């Protein structure tokens, strides 16, 4: 049952040391503000799950919050490497990072299976490549009708899903539009959830009869954080700040400048900075 609360309270009560956390977003609606709050609250030993870990996971890893990463593509889209992720994997800084590596198809199916209450997902994949050699969680199932050998992966069942969406109403019903990624599945697959939104409205806007809505009784914490996806984007609110993704390459390349930037821009700040970041873009949301 949804509770509308502050970001600090939501993270305090939903995200604990050692939790498995899925902060999803497929380049769209990435929950950066919530990620910063997790860093401020100095969570430790998290297992992070995400198909496409990018800047916010780079920050969580560089700040030492993460002991394991479950992922399928870890980079700075259109720019290059995630230097903090690489430093952790290649040099064990700030400490060793365990990897569980999958393909997009595997994780998308694993979230879907988690949302569907199944113990595993089956799909046609992982044929011939080396990933099954380095990931023991990839197994095989035989179709009882055709004899075809299919790939199987365990369903994802995170302790917490953290997502950002455009809108929630005052009951806590959450509406998502545009590039949907796996956010709906991540929330439905998780034990708990934190949803930040651009705005909390009296009435969700009229869309189609088949709008993508998470009913209030499927989410736990709803927090209004305008700009909360920056530098990612919120369809209908503000565009992706591509320039910041490029700047991040320089900010994150070396440890000291990274730590300095995090101190100044995350540790010493609060969620309110996100609204300022996007003010110049913000377009009237219909």
């Amino acid at each position, binding site marked *: 049952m949804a509770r509308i609360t502050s970001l600090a309270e939501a993270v305090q009560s939903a995200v604990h040391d050692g939790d498995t956390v899925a902060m999803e977003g*497929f380049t769209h609606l990435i929950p950066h503000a919530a990620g910063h709050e997790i860093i401020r609250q100095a969570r430790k030993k998290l297992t992070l799950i995400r198909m496409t870990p990018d800047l916010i996971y780079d920050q969580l890893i560089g700040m030492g919050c993460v002991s394991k990463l479950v992922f399928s593509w870890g980079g700075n889209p259109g720019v290059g490497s995630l230097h903090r992720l690489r430093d952790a994997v290649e040099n064990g800084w700030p400490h060793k990072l365990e990897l569980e590596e999958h393909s997009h198809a595997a994780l998308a*199916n694993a979230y879907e299976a988690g949302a569907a209450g199944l113990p595993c997902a089956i799909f046609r994949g992982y044929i011939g*490549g080396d990933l099954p050699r380095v990931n023991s969680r990839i197994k095989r199932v035989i179709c009882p009708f055709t004899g075809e050998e299919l790939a199987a992966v365990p369903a994802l069942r995170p302790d917490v899903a953290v997502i950002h969406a455009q809108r929630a109403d005052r009951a806590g019903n959450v509406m998502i539009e545009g590039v*949907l*990624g796996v956010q709906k599945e991540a929330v439905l697959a998780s034990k708990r959830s934190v949803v930040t939104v651009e705005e909390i409205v009296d009435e969700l806007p009229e869309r189609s009869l088949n709008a993508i809505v998470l009913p209030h009784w499927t989410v736990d914490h709803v927090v209004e954080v305008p700009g909360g996806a920056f530098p990612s984007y919120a369809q209908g609110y503000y565009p992706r700040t591509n320039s910041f*993704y490029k700047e991040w390459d320089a900010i994150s390349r070396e440890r000291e400048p990274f730590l300095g930037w995090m101190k100044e821009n995350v540790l010493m700040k609060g969620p309110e900075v996100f609204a300022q970041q996007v003010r110049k873009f913000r377009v009237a949301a219909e």
Partner: protein
Amino acid sequence: MTDYTPNEMMTIAAARALKDDDVCFVGIGMPSAAANLARLTHAPNITLIYESGTLGTKPNILPLSIGDGELCETALTTVSVPEMFRYWLQGGRIKVGFLGGAQIDRFANLNTTVVGSYDSPKVRLPGGGGAPEIATSCGEIFIIMAQSKRSFVEKLDFVTSIGHVSGHDSRAGLGVQTKGPTKLITDLAQLEPDPVTKEMTVVSIHPGVTREQIEGNTGWKIAYAAKVAETPPPSPHELEVLRDLHARTRRAQEAA
């Protein structure tokens, strides 16, 4: 008109390989440029799909990320990522998939995972993303990669996605029914699998490129087809449309 870069030649050669009725799974970067160049020139009806879920998108500028708003706003519709990988990719609806990578071998197997060993890599690369299943689910695969001894290697450090595996019928032997890599387009030449050995073989050399250059940038003893053509140079129209596309994209990204 011969004033163009090897990258432009590579992109334009890749665009030419696409047909008006193709359904194409597009990645970021060069494939995105090639696919949209095709759409803006000879293939106006081509269906472009990005793994973020956008079906039939017609971006006016090239996306920096696979899920830019531009892709969604100009799409016929946008589906969830699980649906994309289940109904659309695994469903066998994609005719052409584009791939690239950090390393490729003579059978067009690709590595986008690590340089060095997996457990203590010299370079940790972003990883496979959609590639492992794109490589086996799409009707055929086009690969775009600039050639160098570092990227065109005798042996991959890690097989992220398969091409023709170890050649001959080894791909089909894994139960894979799709064609795999039918074209490898580089900054120097175009390669296609030998009908029998499935080794990627030079079928066309870009204007002004020598066999010595090709061999100097390939980590194995590269094979040539019996008849090797010269790639027609970019037409003024192809270059103009491609450069306009890049210019529009640059302006839009500087605005952001």
